[in-house]
């Protein structure tokens, strides 16, 4: 503000005040920025929802480990839908079976109006989901465990069939004329990852010798990088590395660069490095299962079921992938990946 003092007559005061206000406002952007973000948050906090249904409570319990970008996207989608649908959203996660089961039980204890659960552990969830049913809580399963979903009495499943995703990746590999593929599994014992690799082999039509699987330790990136590089150095025939997650793709890219051979890297899932790679050509394509959509639709479908007894697809699994992303999508994606929703 200017420090010159002027004393307007009484009649001019409102005019001066209006002018001062305009000056103050003129220096600010009226669109975007932090203020807009705060306004959105305030609107959400003040019940700025798009609906007039009562305030329901929905809990999501996943098998995610701590600090995982993928699950952060799922959570963001769910929170966005919850804000829109006037829903209190509770999130909890634990990678160990018994702890995840206990968290589901804790959600039931809280008498939630709807439950979103991942079924990575399959049969272990049968009992506690039976309890949810007995308590009259509608359940939708997301992300993993499509084959168990109906069996445990869930309304529907939202996610990607990993075998189908693998086959889509394989078809894309074949279309690109890749001849010798190394599929990198970073969680030994993860059934979904095995399905992706075997699906990719089936879809690509490559023989066993031209499609190899390498197990690396996904929580130890330097070690994983060295393992991929060692394999590339040991086998000069490999022309493609296929990774199964955004962070692993970044590690795979480093190993490919270290090898100084014209190897293409393709991946499942997204991440900032994947998008940058799609742009620059280091990454051929990415198969995305749209985690944001899994969280968003999970909450939204529970809301639709509760408020209108609707069920998308009539209860058949709702597919959020596979979506093949290439150089053509990279520009649009970059912004969304940066804000953590893709």
């Amino acid at each position, binding site marked *: 503000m200017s420090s010159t003092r002027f004393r307007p007559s009484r009649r001019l005061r409102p005019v001066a005040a209006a002018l001062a206000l305009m000056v103050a406002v003129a220096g600010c952007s009226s669109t975007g920025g932090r203020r807009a973000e705060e306004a959105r948050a305030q609107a959400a906090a003040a019940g700025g929802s798009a609906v007039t249904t009562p305030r329901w409570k929905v809990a999501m319990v996943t098998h995610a480990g*701590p600090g995982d970008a993928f699950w952060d996207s799922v959570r963001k989608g769910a929170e966005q839908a919850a804000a829109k649908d006037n829903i209190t959203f*509770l*999130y*909890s*996660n634990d990678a*160990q*079976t*018994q*702890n995840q*089961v*206990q*968290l589901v*039980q*804790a*959600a*039931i*204890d*809280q*008498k939630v109006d709807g439950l979103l659960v991942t079924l990575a*552990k*399959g*049969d*272990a969830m*049968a*009992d506690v989901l039976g309890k949810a049913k007995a308590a009259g809580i509608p359940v939708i399963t997301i992300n993993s465990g499509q084959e168990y979903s109906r069996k445990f009495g869930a309304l529907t499943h939202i996610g990607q069939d990993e075998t189908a995703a693998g086959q889509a990746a394989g078809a894309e590999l074949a279309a690109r004329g890749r001849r010798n593929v190394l599929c990198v599994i970073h969680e*030994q*014992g*993860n*059934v979904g990852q*095995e399905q992706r690799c075997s699906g990719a082999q089936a879809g690509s039509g490559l023989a066993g010798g031209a499609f190899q699987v390498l197990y690396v330790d996904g929580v130890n990136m330097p070690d994983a990088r060295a393992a991929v590089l060692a394999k590339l150095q040991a086998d000069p025939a490999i022309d493609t590395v296929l990774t199964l997650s955004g962070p692993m793709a970044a590690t795979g890219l480093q190993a490919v660069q270290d090898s100084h051979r014209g190897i293409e890297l393709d991946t499942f899932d997204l991440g900032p490095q994947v998008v940058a790679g799609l742009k620059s050509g280091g990454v051929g394509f990415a198969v995305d299962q749209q985690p944001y959509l899994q969280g968003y639709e999970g909450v939204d479908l529970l809301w639709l079921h509760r408020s209108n007894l609707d069920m998308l697809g009539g209860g058949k699994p709702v597919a959020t992938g596979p979506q093949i992303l290439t150089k053509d999508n990279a520009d649009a994606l970059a912004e969304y990946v940066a804000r953590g929703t893709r």
Partner: protein
Amino acid sequence: MTTDLLVQDRPAAVRRLLARPELGALIAAVAVFLVFAAVAEPFLRVSSLGTVLYAASTIGIMAVPVSLLMIGGEFDLSAGVLVTTAALTSSMVSYQFTAVTWVGVVVSLAVTLAVGWFNGWMLGRTRLPSFIVTLGTFLMLTGANLGVTKLVSGTVSTKPISDMEGFASCRWLFASEVTVGGLTIKATVWWWLGLLAVGTWVLLRTRFGNWIFAVGGDAAAARAVGVPVARTKTVLYLGVGFGAWVLGQHLLFSFDTVQSGEGVGNELIYIVAAVIGGCLITGGYGSVAGSALGALIFGMASKGIVYAQWNPDWFKFFLGAMLLLAALLNAFVKRRAERGPR
């Protein structure tokens, strides 16, 4: 608080109470309970109490033998994965030999006791610190859990055995539940109380209990007065094997399938429960009843955070802070109790 009790001329009974190692844990448990009772409305529901007790029992069952072992002056870092080994063994033996599930249960006990014996034998033979010996066992078991399961089942989790003979009776013994007026008590709670009673009796009322204190306090002096040090420690490791067997069977018969990669990290939680309960990390001092309070604090904190709807991102932080506070309170009470004439 207890300040009015801590005067110079307190009666002998009070003095004895104040000198008990579990007093600090008791005060900490009450404090944690009051915190969550105040901030989390669902925490006080009867059904939630059942969930908290269950969570506490799955730690408490292992905390009993682990606290005895720590009073005996040793660690067991393999205790967490040994639980998974017990569950995997039981499941795979029953399935592969198409045997009544009780066969798997018995073989599993033999395996866990063998691992316990191996730990004790290595310790006695090599004179290596138990930290190193059991670290080796921990790594070997982690690998064996995954490797053997993959070799036998072809995947990383076991196949369901719920349709096999004997499953129902095993389930009744290890994983049934009784509901009284909304409070669901799981079988693990009874096992926990049983182990607690036996452990306390052994420690305080038998000659073997004196030996435990002796070998933990000063192994050389104990050996000089004729205490069989190596054998005492081996028996303590067998106790850990037995606890792992009980908990492993519970996991199997309540979840039907077992994931081979689980259990890593839980060994530290058992140690924490024992330490909060008043066990010294150097051995020679502690209590079995205290370990139950430690497990209860852990159960209340881990589920209370969920009932209080705190942001799960901070879950581990809260847990760590709470454990430190409990341990500090413990040390404080112990110091106050030891002051003054004895």
